[in-house]
Every structure is written in structure tokens, then in C-alpha cells.
């Protein structure tokens, strides 16, 4: 062997440590990033920023010329230049910070799901992080793993990899990150944990604010155990309409747990909660003591050593699933089973086999004076019952007559119907005379009593659902997301769990249920009457895709049992044919196609194979179904917030743009100045638009149907319409009011521009025949700027109020903070002395604050009514148009009324 390694024992850990120190960790070097100063410079040199630099330079030049001429008429140019530069720098810093943050967030995700490798060192197998591998390490790889380093395959069986370049070689070389598709676990040797450069994998395709939003959400999700691999997954997640979930491990706890006991002719429920917080059953009965003893003794499972501090349900056990469940159960109810078993010395045992379907063992009794042997037995209930002649009821052996047999049968059926695995338990004290001490029990010959035993009871086990799952399923249901269970389990178990967590709701029936209830053949049942449907893999194989589509369409509650991973893909495709956005969970290698096909593939972080994690868009760190629902909620929230944010940006841009359009086309005196716009952009806007993006969820976010990504775009026409004109109109009303009340009637204003701006004209006549100097007109113009600014502020307030809550009434969310902020800022700019000459803000008359207010209130009223309609009739297609018409006619009357109010006010 090369690299001084042994083919069986691998490296010694000390040597491996040395090599690790010498070579460094087995990591790909991240690509050389762009230097930070370049990133910052990029923020300062965007298209708009360049324009602003040029503008600033021009301002400086203009100011310089004025100085050189020796006459400084004003510092306006200087102020404007400084403001422009400040704007560029401040927004640059902000943008840089945001980019920095989102890059960090994305980078941090890599460490959340570290790659593991099974390495053989000192002859022992150990799970270590893949970056600790060194040259010469032996690693074991199983199907679905990602190759942890560049390796040479030493032994393999049925190995399949996608892109093997040098197959003919006896020891083919595999490069890291190749997915090992199938083939049993084989040993490979690390060749060179080489240090090639990693390609840049995460590339942002979003414009920065969206990127920030998404990465922040991704971070929030990561905290809730969902790691998102590509950012758009966050958004798609929000529109998920079908969720195909695995059962084992996702909906359930992935551990067999004792769920029910039947003794004393009664079914007792055991505590199945993950943290043992549930109710326990009555343990005072003698029968229970006997049953508990059988369960403890007839059990080969043991705890792995050194786990005293670990809570019992979490301890690792050597043994099969049911024995593990029984061991933990008895450990919890009786206590210290190892010690208990020690007191009943085991003489011999017959392990479980599929022909006997039972397991028995023979023990000495605890009491040294009692020389009888105790035979304990467990197994398939019907087989156990065959061997029994008596039954233990309240500690007394009663003959097992037909009545008891019927009772047993009922209990057995009941428990089986719950999807639980039922075991029967019985025992017998062997006759002291027939089997004295020292008797040689021969397990092959069975030279001892195995019939006429005493039946103790039944214990049934199940992999119980996770505590949080029923709530999560309920949440999905209200959110219009359909949960489909796809499992390899038995249909009865699958159905029981589905009913338990609410995937099949109470009162829902399958076709078969209806047939039994009505006592008619299955064929006569109307399929649409059955809400629920359980299809097993065999049936699925025989179905055409149309039939499957039909089934999915007809039955809202679907469970697929006994399915293969390939069939998962068929189910996903069928859902997508029906127009759903499908999220699929998966863990195995064979799930990869389904994960890839799904709109959102979700891999399990604990149980999932590397292949599944590779194919998925999202990884659930805790394998918990409830985390997916959290993800959906976050995805919806971000879409909602972005929608609000974008609508807000749109609405504010239009009133900022229209003054210039009107100024150019109709030649009115300029209604809105540059510095004023800068103020709107920088001061009054930042707070609302940022706060919108970081908004908390509206409480009904999970009560709506998933949006249709084809129809529900970020900006729909309806939003654009009323934002564009209403607000522009509102600002112009205020502008014309301010002009007219000072003596410039609207009609005079039209076409006035060239005279208005003529510096030499010191006696321009207004509508009343008064004469104005240029300076007086200029200050009037500033007044208009201020009035326009105030109108925009009022519109912003109204707008944020309506945007913030697209469906819920604004009064349901308190945020008058924002209003306060806007008002304080507006007041400061208007009434602080010195403002006219620095920032071109004039102290305006108080009335002008109120001119746009009724419009603002109208927008608000209008929107509240729209929301009411949306809440009353969610999802109807044309309602918006009618509501719009209705509301605008309302505005008409309101508006009319308002005009009178204004005349009264002024």
C-alpha cells in the first residue's frame, strides 16, 4: 500500500494527526474573493451614482465659476454638490453593508451541514468531518454518499458513479463531490486531498434589495432548522400548494414506542410523547407486574454502555426496533432492567424466527428458595394465544374460554386497526418436579412445556407522530396546502398515522369505508363522496397517469403506502400536471429524481443521504415536518413584504416623476425641487421601505390559499393603477392650491415657466395684477416644493398604512411610530429657521398640510374596503374590478363632501 497505510486497519490516529498538521485540512480553497475596497467602490460607481457624481462635479464647477467671477450670489450650488456626494456615499455605505451581510449569511450556510466521512483508523470505524481526512486514510462509502476527497477505490461491489473517467482501471480514481449512486459499502483510500479552487457556486441573480430580503429570510429559516440551498427556494416555498411528505422520521419520531397495552381485559394507553410528558397508565394491577416481567425478561436488547446521563428515550440500544421499544418502555416503567434481568438468571433462550413467530427464554426465579423455572414468551398474538390455556385477569389465572378469546380478538383487532404492531406475552412456572434445578434445556429439541401457558397481555407499538406535526398539518390545511403522505409502510399503519396527524381528517372516509358502511360493493360508491384515499404501491403500478390525476383531483386527502421511491416521482409529476407547486421530502439516494423534479426538494439533515441533500433545494436539519411549515410561512412572508415594498417604491416614484413631466409638458413653475427629492429618497423613504421589508407576518398569512405564481406577480395592475394617478393628483391639488391661494391661478400657471424663471423679470403679474420680483417667485416655488413634499409625506403615510397590511385592516397592526417619524421630519424641515436657503424648504401654512389629507384618507378608506372584500371573498377573480368601481364612486361622493370642508377650512 502506498501512503503507509494498512488496508484493514487504516492509519493510526496519531499519524493521521501529524499528516493533518502537515497538509492542513481537506478543504477546497474558496475562490479568491473580490477585495473589499473594490466591492465598496462598486457600490459608489453604479449607473445612477456616476450620474450623481457628474452632477456634483458640475455643481462644483458652477460654484467655482461664481467664485472666480467674484460675486457669490448664493451657496445653492455648493449645497447641492455636497448633498449629492453625501447621498452617493451614504447609499453606497448602506448598499455595501447589505451586500456584506447577505454574502456572510450565505457563506455561513455551508457550515450548517458539514460533510461527514466514515474513516477507518486504528482498525476502528469513526464518523468524522470530511475536512479532517488526510492522505492515506481509508474511507468507507455507501450508496448515496458524496465522495469526501479524491479517492482511489480499493474494493467495491456494484459501484455506480455518474462521471467516472477512468473506469477500466482496477482501482479507479474518483474525484471529490462525485455522488456514489449505488453499490454496497466499500473501502477506498484517500489519494490527495487536493487543494484545487472551488468554483463560485452561489451566484446572485437578484437585484440587491431582493437579495438582502431573501438572504435575511434564509438566515431566519436556518435558525428554524431549514437550510436553504438556493435563495429562490425561499420564494417558491411560499407558493407551495402540495406537500408530499415521508412518514418515517418526518411525520413520526422514527422510533418504535409502546403505544398501548391490553391486560385485565382493558386497553391501556402508554405515554408516547417525545419528552415523556404524557399520562401513564395504572400500574397497580398484578397482571401488569407479570406482563412487565415477561416484557423485560424475554428481550435481548441492551443499552450501549456509558449512557447513564442520557434520557432513556434518547439512549442508543443494540437490538431490533420492537425490542428496543420494549426495553425503553420497561426501563421507564419498571426501572433498571439490566439489574432486573440479573435477578432472574437466564438459563436458555430461543430467539425469534419467522417460522415459530415467537421468542422464549427460561429464567430462574428471584427468590432463591423458589426452585421453579419461569418460562417467558412473546410473539405474534395469535400464535401465543394458541399455546395458552389460561389468562391472567387481576392477578388470577382464569381458564381461557371462548368469552376471553373473543375479548382478546377484539383487542387485537382494535390495536391492529390503529396501525400498531401487536405482540402477545405469556409465561408459565415450570413444574418443579418435572424440571428440577440442573435440568438441561435443549432449545432445538424443545424438551420443555411450550403449551398450556398463561396469557399475560398484549403490548402494541408504533412509531408515534411528532408532537408538533398535527398542528403543522392543520396549519397547512388552513394555508390551502395539501399534505400527501408517501410512505413505504403498510397501508393500515400509514392510514393510522395519517389519521393521527390530521392528513386524513376526522370523519373522512375512503371508498372502502363507504362501501362497508352502506353495505354495497366498492364499485357502486361514488368516488367524489370519499374525501380520503389510500393507494398502495401495487395499485399505483397498475394505474395510468390519467387515473392517478383523477384520484388526486377527486380525493383531497391522499395517502400512498408501500410505494417505491420511483413511484414518488410519478406522484410528483401528477401533482405538477394538476398545476400544483409541489414540495417533496426525501432521504434516500433513490429519492433524488423526485427531489429534483419537485419545485422544492426537501432533504432530511439527519437521515438524509448526501445524494438527497445534493438534489434538494432545502435541508431540514431536524427532519421535522413542522419546520417545513415554518419555511412556507417565511416564504409567504417574504413575498408579501416584497410586494408591499415594491408597491411602495412604485407609488412614491410616480409622484416624484410627475412634477417633472408636468413641468416639461405644461410648463408650470417647477413643483418639486432636486434637493426636496433627495430628501424624499433619503430621509422620508428609508424608514418606511426598510420597515416594510422587515415586517412581521400578518396573522392570517397562513390562512390564505397559496398564490399562483403564474398570475400573482409582484406588481399587479391593480396596485399600479391607483398608486400612479391618485397620488400624483393629490400632490398636484396641493400644489395648485398653494399657488392659487398666493395669487397664481392654475390656468395662469400653465405656460408660465419661461417668464417665471426669467431672472430679469422683477415685476411679473399674477392673476390679481400684483407684481412679483424674481426672488419672491423663487420663494413661492420653494413653498410649492415644500407643499409637494408634505403631500408626498401624507401619501407615504397613507400608502405605508395600506401597503403594510395588504389584507388585514391597518388598525389591526399598530405602527403610528412611522406616522410620528414622518410628521416630525416634515415639521423640522418646514419650520426650522434657515431651511429656505439651505434646503429650499419654506415654512408653509398649516392648512396646506391638510389639503392632501382627505385624499390620503380616501386612499385609506378605499383600501380598507378593498381588503374587506378580499377577506370576505378570498380568491374571486373579478371582484377587484367591481370593488374598484364601487369604491371610486364612493370616493366621488366623499370627495365632493370634502371640497366643501376645504372651503370652510380656508
Amino acid at each position: 500500500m502506498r501512503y503507509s497505510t494498512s488496508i484493514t486497519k487504516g492509519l493510526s490516529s496519531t499519524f493521521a494527526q501529524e499528516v493533518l498538521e502537515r497538509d492542513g485540512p481537506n478543504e477546497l480553497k474558496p475562490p479568491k474573493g473580490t477585495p473589499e475596497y473594490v466591492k465598496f467602490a462598486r457600490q459608489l460607481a453604479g449607473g445612477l451614482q456616476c450620474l450623481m457624481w457628474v452632477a456634483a462635479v458640475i455643481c462644483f464647477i458652477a460654484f467655482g465659476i461664481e467664485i472666480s467671477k467674484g460675486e457669490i450670489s448664493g451657496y445653492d450650488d455648493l449645497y447641492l454638490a455636497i448633498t449629492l456626494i453625501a447621498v452617493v456615499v451614504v447609499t453606497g455605505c448602506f448598499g455595501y453593508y447589505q451586500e456584506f451581510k447577505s454574502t456572510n449569511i450565505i457563506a455561513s450556510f455551508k457550515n450548517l451541514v458539514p460533510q461527514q466521512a466514515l474513516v477507518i483508523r486504528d482498525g476502528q470505524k469513526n464518523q468524522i468531518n470530511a475536512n479532517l481526512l488526510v492522505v492515506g486514510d481509508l474511507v468507507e462509502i455507501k450508496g448515496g454518499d458524496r465522495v469526501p476527497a479524491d479517492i482511489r477505490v480499493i474494493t467495491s461491489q456494484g459501484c455506480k458513479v455518474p462521471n467516472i473517467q477512468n473506469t477500466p482501471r482496477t482501482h479507479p480514481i474518483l474525484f471529490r463531490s462525485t455522488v456514489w449512486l449505488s453499490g454496497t459499502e466499500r473501502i477506498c483510500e484517500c489519494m490527495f486531498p487536493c487543494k484545487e479552487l472551488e468554483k463560485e457556486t452561489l451566484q446572485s441573480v437578484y437585484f440587491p434589495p431582493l437579495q438582502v430580503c431573501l438572504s435575511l429570510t434564509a438566515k431566519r429559516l436556518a435558525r428554524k432548522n431549514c437550510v436553504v440551498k438556493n435563495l429562490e427556494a425561499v420564494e417558491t416555498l411560499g407558493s407551495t400548494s402540495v406537500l408530499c411528505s415521508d412518514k418515517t422520521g418526518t411525520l413520526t419520531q422514527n422510533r418504535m414506542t409502546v403505544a398501548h397495552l391490553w391486560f385485565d381485559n382493558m386497553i391501556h394507553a402508554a405515554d408516547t410523547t417525545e419528552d415523556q410528558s404524557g399520562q401513564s397508565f395504572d400500574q397497580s394491577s398484578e397482571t401488569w407486574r407479570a406482563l412487565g416481567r415477561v416484557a423485560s425478561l424475554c428481550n435481548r436488547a441492551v443499552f450501549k454502555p456509558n449512557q447513564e446521563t442520557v434520557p432513556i428515550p434518547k439512549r442508543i440500544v443494540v437490538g431490533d426496533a420492537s425490542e428496543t421499544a420494549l426495553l425503553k418502555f420497561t426501563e421507564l416503567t419498571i426501572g433498571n432492567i439490566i439489574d432486573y434481568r440479573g435477578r432472574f438468571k437466564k438459563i436458555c433462550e430461543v430467539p425469534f424466527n419467522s417460522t415459530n413467530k415467537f421468542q422464549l427464554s427460561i429464567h430462574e426465579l428471584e427468590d432463591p428458595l423458589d426452585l421453579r423455572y419461569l418460562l417467558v414468551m412473546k410473539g405474534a398474538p395469535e400464535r401465543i394465544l394458541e399455546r395458552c390455556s389460561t389468562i391472567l385477569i387481576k392477578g388470577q389465572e382464569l381458564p381461557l374460554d371462548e368469552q376471553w378469546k373473543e375479548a382478546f380478538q377484539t383487542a387485537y383487532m382494535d390495536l391492529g386497526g390503529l396501525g400498531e404492531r401487536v405482540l402477545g406475552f405469556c409465561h408459565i412456572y415450570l413444574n418443579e418436579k418435572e424440571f428440577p434445578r440442573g435440568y438441561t434445556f435443549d432449545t432445538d429439541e424443545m424438551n420443555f412445556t411450550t403449551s398450556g401457558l398463561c396469557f399475560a397481555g398484549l403490548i402494541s407499538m408504533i412509531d408515534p407522530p411528532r408532537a408538533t406535526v398535527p398542528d403543522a398539518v392543520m396549519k397547512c390545511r388552513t394555508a390551502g396546502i395539501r399534505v400527501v403522505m408517501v410512505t413505504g409502510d403498510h397501508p393500515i399503519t400509514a392510514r393510522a398515522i395519517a389519521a393521527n396527524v390530521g392528513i386524513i381528517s376526522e370523519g373522512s372516509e375512503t371508498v372502502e369505508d363507504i362501501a362497508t358502511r352502506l353495505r354495497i360493493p366498492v364499485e357502486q360508491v361514488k368516488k367524489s363522496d370519499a374525501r380520503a384515499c389510500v393507494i398502495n404501491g401495487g395499485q399505483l403500478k397498475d394505474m395510468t397517469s390519467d387515473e392517478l390525476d383523477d384520484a388526486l383531483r377527486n380525493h383531497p386527502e391522499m395517502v400512498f403506502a408501500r410505494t417505491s421511491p420511483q413511484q414518488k416521482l410519478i406522484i410528483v409529476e401528477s401533482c405538477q400536471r394538476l398545476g400544483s407547486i409541489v414540495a417533496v421530502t426525501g432521504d434516500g439516494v433513490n429519492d433524488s429524481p423526485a427531489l429534483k423534479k419537485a419545485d422544492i426538494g426537501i432533504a432530511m439533515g439527519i437521515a438524509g443521504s448526501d445524494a438527497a441533500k445534493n438534489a434538494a433545494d432545502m435541508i431540514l436539519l431536524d427532519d421535522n415536518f413542522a419546520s417545513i411549515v415554518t419555511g412556507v410561512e417565511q416564504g409567504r412572508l417574504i413575498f408579501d413584504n416584497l410586494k408591499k415594498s415594491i408597491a411602495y417604491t412604485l407609488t412614491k416614484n410616480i409622484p416624484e416623476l410627475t412634477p417633472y413631466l408636468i413641468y416639461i409638458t405644461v410648463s408650470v413653475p417647477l413643483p418639486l425641487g432636486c434637493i426636496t427629492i433627495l430628501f424624499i429618497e433619503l430621509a422620508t423613504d428609508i424608514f418606511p421601505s426598510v420597515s416594510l421589508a422587515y415586517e412581521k407576518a400578518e396573522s392570517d398569512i397562513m390562512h390564505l390559499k397559496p398564490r399562483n405564481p403564474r398570475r400573482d406577480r409582484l406588481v399587479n395592475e391593480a396596485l399600479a393603477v391607483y398608486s400612479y394617478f391618485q397620488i400624483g393628483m393629490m400632490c398636484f391639488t396641493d400644489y395648485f392650491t398653494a399657488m392659487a391661494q398666493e395669487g397664481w391661478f392654475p390656468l395662469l400657471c400653465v405656460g408660465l415657466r419661461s417668464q417665471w424663471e426669467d431672472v430679469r423679470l422683477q415685476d411679473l403679474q399674477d392673476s390679481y395684477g400684483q407684481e412679483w420680483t424674481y426672488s419672491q417667485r423663487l420663494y413661492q416655488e420653494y413653498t410649492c416644493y415644500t407643499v409637494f413634499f408634505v403631500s408626498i409625506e401624507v401619501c407615504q403615510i397613507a400608502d405605508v398604512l395600506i401597503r403594510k397590511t395588504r389584507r388585514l385592516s391597518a388598525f389591526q397592526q399598530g405602527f403610528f411610530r412611522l406616522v410620528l417619524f414622518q410628521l416630525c421630519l416634515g415639521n423640522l424641515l418646514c419650520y426650522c429657521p434657515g431651511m429656505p436657503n439651505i434646503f429650499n424648504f419654506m415654512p408653509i401654512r398649516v392648512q396646506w398640510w391638510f389639503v392632501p389629507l382627505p385624499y390620503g384618507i380616501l386612499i385609506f378608506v378605499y383600501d380598507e374596503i378593498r381588503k374587506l372584500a378580499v377577506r370576505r371573498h378570498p380568491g374571486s377573480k373579478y371582484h377587484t374590478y367591481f370593488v374598484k368601481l364601487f369604491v371610486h364612486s364612493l370616493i366621488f361622493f366623499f370627495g365632493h363632501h370634502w371640497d366643501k370642508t376645504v372651503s370652510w377650512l380656508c
Partner: protein
Amino acid sequence: MAKGDKKNEWKEFFWNPRTREFCGRTASSWGLIFLFYLAFYIFLAGMFILTMYVMLLTLDDNKPTYQDRLATPGLMIRPKGEEMEIIYAKENTESWDTHVQALNSFLSPYNDSVQEQKNYACKPDQYFKQEDSDSVKNNPKRSCQFRRSILEDCSGLTDRYYGYDEGKPCIIIKLNRVIGMLPGKDGQAPSISCAPKIDDTDKMGEVAYFPRNGTFNLMYFPYYGKKAQVNYSQPLVAIKFLNITLNTEINVECKIIANNIPNLNERDKFAGRVSFKLRINSRN
């Protein structure tokens, strides 16, 4: 392959012959949308016009609601010249002819005949108030005569060229009209006073004011607006530079002196004052 698909997809989006959809909508759908927006915009425009109309209804025809910017009335000169500069050569008739023309046309409404015909000879030295009684508007309001002849040497009646040919030019100063303004206080009429800007008093020489003392008679105030007082004649003050230094640039500043008009506004160089440049070239 994929590219072709995309192209087809676009084509289909633009015109889908199967569903007869243009840009993803059928004709009737487009029609409905068009109708809706048409109605919507008409409605918005109507609403805007309505609000503007109602706003205009609230305005008074004769008096602006606010006069926030007009606390200090502006002063202006005639002729204006280019950029408030009056530069001419006294021998060169063409160089001052435009100024004379400007003065002629400016003063023509002040011809004595016109004034006597249209306006009322008011009682001088007191405000000519014509207030409305409570309900009845006292309209139209009469205006006081300002006869051109009051300007004497600068009236252009005796001296056709307003002294421009002799190097003794006349400049007429007018006070901007502001509705309701009552300049002066305690019966004292506002007057104009001109002085050179920088220390070139001696260069400016003597100045004559017409009417005497350069006052605006109180009877021309208040102004009631162009609608109520159609024939209002703005009072004027003429100044005549009697022995100005030739071939030199002189900066002159004229201010209004009235105890209720502040004339020092740093920002506005034309509020209550006016400055101009005067230069008369001459060969000798």
C-alpha cells in the same frame, strides 16, 4: 433546442391561435380591461377637475387668500436695459433710441388726456380707500389720475429725448403693485432716494426727482386688484441725472423710504430697492 422552445413560447404568448389570446388575454378580456381603465381614468380626471374647480370657488376674485411673499414690494426701473444696465453714447442716437422708445410706450397710458378721461382726480396726500360695505361690493373701483406731466422734465412732453441726448438721462422708478398695501405711515408718503452704490458720490453728481422729493402720493394706495380697479395707474417717480461723470460706470441704488416697508432683504435685491448700472460715453 431549448432556444427554439423559448422562441415558440414567446410566439405563443404574443399570439396563441389555439385560445385566440393576444399577450395572454382574449379580445374580450382586453376590451374589458381597456373599458375599465378608460372609465377609471376619465373618472380620475373628472375628480381632479372637480376638486380644482371647487378649490377655485373658494378663492376671492379681488383679493388673494395669502400674500406671504409680498411683504416688501419690489422696485423696478424703466428703461430696463440689458441686465439692468443702461449704457449708451450720447452722440450715438441709435444707442439710446431704444430707451427713449421704451419710455414712450411705457408712459403713453399716463398721457394727461387718457388719465383725465378714465380716472378720477382724487384728493392728494391721503389714502383713497373704497371699501366694500358688508354685502354690496363697491365695484368697479375708481382710480386716481397720474398725469404724465407730473414728471415734468422726465415726462417726455417738454424734452422728447428725456435728456438722453444731453447726457442727463431720466430713469423712471415704479413700485410693484401689491393689493391692499398702504405704504407710508402717519400721513407720510413713501419716497425714493437714490445713491451710488460704492463711494462714487461725486461721479454720480446731482439728481433731480420728479415729482418733487421723489414721493409716491398716498392717494394712489391702496390697490384693489386688476379686476376691481381696471384703470389703476401705478404711481411713478422719475430721476434725472443732472451732471453725471461721463465715460465712467456708476452703480446706482434706489431705495424706497417708507416707515412700514423694510427695504433690507439680503436675498432679494429687488425688494424695496433697485440697483442698476449707468454709463454714458461721450467723445469729449
